[in-house]
């Protein structure tokens, strides 16, 4: 099966049959061709000749053509389309070299790194946009943005890219694809081809949103509220289209992860032994499979409202419907971000504390109940829109969701208590992340209370709250995961000094920036404003200074990580003495993850002097594997 793919016998003639153009470059070219073809097709049938060459409808269909061209160009043409139609394809998957990260691949580890790289790129772009926003907010009137709609477009681009291509991607598409199959002892994922295509939707989505101003400004922020969106120029079309690409990618990741975890677990990998991070992926996967189709349908309606228009969401239709449809997805979205983070805390804490995971069943119950309750709290985003009698049930569930969230803390603190805690960089980042999320959670208690919410809603208090929950969780824990798994993914170790130094720097500047948002909000600073009353200027100025320093701290981390990846000291296969299966293979893992199918023979989170090794590969099988690899050549390791 998959074994044949990795047989490296075809490597000598690999180069001769390669497309002459690098796949990404070809993707751009085919995307341009696709856009022109579809755009012109619309122009030809356009009953109102004399319009500009590119109109709203033609750009929308042109974008579909561009997306098809892009996906085929990066390698889906040879990898998927040709075989599907029965044509011979000379496509061979690369197993070594950096080029395999820049083309279509079916290796979940390559795909995982492609997702991580895209998320990192999105983070840098959207982070830069955030710094432009902070620069503008240093003064109380317009300075670097000449028109308020430019500023509002920047707000929208920042939020959209951060939510849909960073927060939804880094831990799901990135570490999910890379680590989950190895962690459950599988030698591959359920849908490798689909997954290989879906990852290329992320750069397409990021670029679509980033270049949305080509079609005009849009002023709605990341939520695309109607009817304002339909009043905006056509830039909003690229918001809907970019988000469609990004959410589709997330949907495919969830489909792949849930199926892989359900059907491709190693022998002995029972649900009771399933690693916490895999539990996080299953619960998040279910959230994604339920709610992403809902928001996609909503955004299709929004897109048609803008193009046609239909009056779905004007006063003639129902304005509130859009808000409700958005937040029915919007709050589960927050937990799509947070649940894998909770799971990762309790993945890393027992390893670094060298102590058995405390109250494991409660940690899992916490993940499952957060998932279930997350669909019942959404209307708390609309307390300023609700009849009084409708408010109480949503306030109730919103307050209750802090209970299962707390279980992640209970398990973490219980595990660390009296443990042998190694304060490595990942552990430090996990503790910082738990601190930040605690602030985010406790400020959320104020927001959950309806009467307090009526004052704090749509102020900088809310902005502070969700930056604490989102950056505090996904970015701090995402960095912890990068440092934790860096030796596994690259075979190299980061510098403990620089890791800790940068983590502390990040923590200080992050808190310096966002803690003041709460005070700004209480003092009357509202959202989506490039200009504001003068009395708020001194604190905004101060916040901006911290924000720039925060930007430097992030860049420092990325530089350090890239340096460690290439030049760090060689790392052993299991530097943390962890017990989960990904540490029982070489670093980086071979194409099929393990030389033979491993078997899980004891619990993964129980530490102790007399604990048996948790992952077992029978001697006979290992010998056979050694013979196989002797015949077929070396397993590629780089």
């Amino acid at each position, binding site marked *: 099966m998959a074994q044949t793919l990795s047989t490296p016998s075809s490597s000598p003639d690999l180069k001769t049959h390669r497309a002459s153009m690098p796949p990404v470059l070809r993707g751009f070219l085919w995307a341009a061709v696709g856009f022109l073809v579809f755009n012109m097709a619309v122009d030809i049938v356009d009953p109102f000749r004399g319009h500009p060459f590119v109109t709203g409808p033609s750009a929308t269909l042109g974008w579909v053509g561009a997306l098809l061209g892009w996906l085929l160009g990066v390698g889906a043409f040879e990898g998927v389309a040709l075989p599907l139609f029965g044509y011979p394809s000379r496509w061979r998957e690369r197993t070594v070299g950096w080029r395999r990260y820049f083309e279509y691949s079916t290796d979940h580890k390559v795909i995982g790194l492609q997702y991580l790289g895209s998320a990192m790129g999105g983070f840098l772009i959207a982070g830069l946009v955030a710094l432009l926003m902070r620069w503008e907010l240093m003064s109380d009137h317009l300075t670097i943005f000449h028109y308020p709609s430019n500023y509002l477009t920047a707000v929208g681009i920042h939020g959209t890219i951060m939510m849909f291509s960073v927060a939804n991607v880094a831990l799901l598409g990135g570490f999910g694809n890379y680590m989950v199959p190895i962690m459950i002892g599988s030698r591959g994922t359920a849908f490798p081809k689909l997954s290989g295509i879906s990852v290329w939707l992320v750069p397409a989505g990021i670029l679509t949103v980033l270049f949305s101003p080509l079609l005009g400004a849009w002023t709605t922020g990341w939520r695309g509220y109607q009817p304002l969106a339909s009043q905006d120029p056509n830039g909003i079309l690229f918001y809907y289209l970019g988000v469609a690409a990004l959410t589709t990618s997330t949907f495919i990741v969830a489909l792949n992860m849930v199926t892989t975890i359900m059907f491709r677990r190693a022998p002995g990998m029972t649900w009771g032994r399933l690693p916490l991070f895999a539990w996080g992926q299953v619960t998040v996967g279910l959230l994604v499979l339920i709610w992403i189709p809902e928001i996609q349908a909503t955004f299709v309606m929004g897109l048609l409202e803008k193009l046609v228009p239909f009056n779905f969401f004007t006063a003639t239709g129902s304005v509130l419907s859009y808000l409700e449809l958005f937040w029915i997805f919007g709050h589960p979205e927050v937990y799509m971000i947070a649940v894998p983070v909770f799971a990762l805390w309790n993945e890393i804490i027992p390893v670094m504390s060298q102590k058995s995971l405390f109250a494991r069943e409660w940690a899992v119950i916490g993940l499952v109940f957060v998932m279930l309750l997350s669909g019942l709290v959404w209307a708390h985003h609309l307390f300023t829109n609700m009849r009084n009698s409708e408010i109480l049930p949503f306030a109730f569930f919103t307050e209750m969701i802090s209970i299962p969230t707390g279980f992640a803390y209970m398990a973490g603190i219980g595990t660390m208590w009296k443990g042998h*805690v190694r304060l490595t960089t990942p552990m430090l980042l996990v503790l910082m992340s738990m601190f930040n999320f605690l602030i985010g959670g406790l400020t959320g208690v104020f927001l959950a209370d309806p009467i307090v919410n009526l004052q704090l809603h749509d102020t900088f208090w809310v902005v502070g709250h969700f930056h604490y929950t989102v950056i505090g969780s996904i970015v701090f824990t995402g960095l912890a995961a990068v440092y934790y798994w860096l030796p596994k993914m690259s075979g190299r170790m980061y510098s403990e000094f620089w890791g800790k130094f940068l983590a502390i720097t990040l923590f200080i500047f992050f808190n310096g920036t966002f803690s003041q948002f709460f005070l700004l909000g209480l003092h009357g600073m509202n959202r989506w404003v490039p200009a504001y009353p003068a009395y708020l200027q001194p604190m905004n100025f101060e916040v901006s200074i911290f924000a720039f320093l925060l930007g430097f701290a992030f860049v420092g981390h990325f530089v350090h990580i890239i340096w460690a990846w290439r030049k760090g000291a060689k790392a052993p296969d299991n530097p943390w003495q962890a017990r989960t299966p990904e540490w029982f293979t070489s670093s980086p893992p071979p194409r099929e993850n393990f030389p033979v199918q491993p078997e899980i023979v004891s619990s993964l989170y129980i530490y102790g002097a007399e604990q048996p090794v948790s992952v077992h590969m029978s001697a006979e099988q290992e010998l056979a594997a050694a013979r196989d690899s002797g015949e077929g050549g070396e397993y590629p390791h780089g």
Partner: protein
Amino acid sequence: MESIVFGIVWIVLSAIVEWLARIPISHDPLYYTASNIGLMVEHAFDFILVVLIPIFVFVVLGFVWTMVRFRVKKGEKPQLPKHWARSNRWFVGVWVIGSVVVNLLFVLHPTTTATEHFFALEQPSAPQNRHAVVVDVTARQWEWIFSYPQYHLTQTLNANGQDMLELPVNRTVKLVLRSYDPFHTYDQYADVIHSFWVPSWGIKEDVIPGETRILYIKPTKITSFAQNPMSRVQCAEVCGPGHPWMEAPLNVVSASAFQHWIAQQQALQSSSS
């Protein structure tokens, strides 16, 4: 033993932080509160703050304790015990039941109590609401228009020609909120969502096209935008490029000054028409 010391430190630290929290609480953590609903917000805010402090201190102390007490030095290889405790009846029990109890407490108070109180204040039949000053508030891109139907005023302006809201102190006001552009009635996309917010009042209400919403509120302080800039009507929901400037000064004055202002506005209106 360790747990007892931890418990004592937790209680002492919580007490210190609670004591420190009296400073913002006595100075109004909302900076400036000038309405009956704002006072409810302030009390709820203070209550939540007081209850959350020990929880915050517990978790943070747990992290600091871990870093100080349970840390192993680099390279040190401590002997692992044969078995680690994987559960603790007391810790889990107190945590789970404790978090349920704290949340039920919040659901009862301030959530339900304050919300019910708010419902009662917003009943049109409530005695104080029957003689309210009525202000029709029209939100359009990008302007707040205030009309006083009881006084036959269609649009009140200040000396600079800005829309302005002026109200008598300690008298209930009935705000009738609509999003509607009287100058562009032909464009169905011109009516977008706005949000009526007065930062010093502690309340905001979205203004949705096609809906008429009513808010009863009583200003409790004589104040003005010049005196405190939180005394302003501010659009809180993004409504397009003009959103940042969709604000209007709010002055709250004595009953006699209000009558004087009404007369002045009426004179202004009749002279201009």
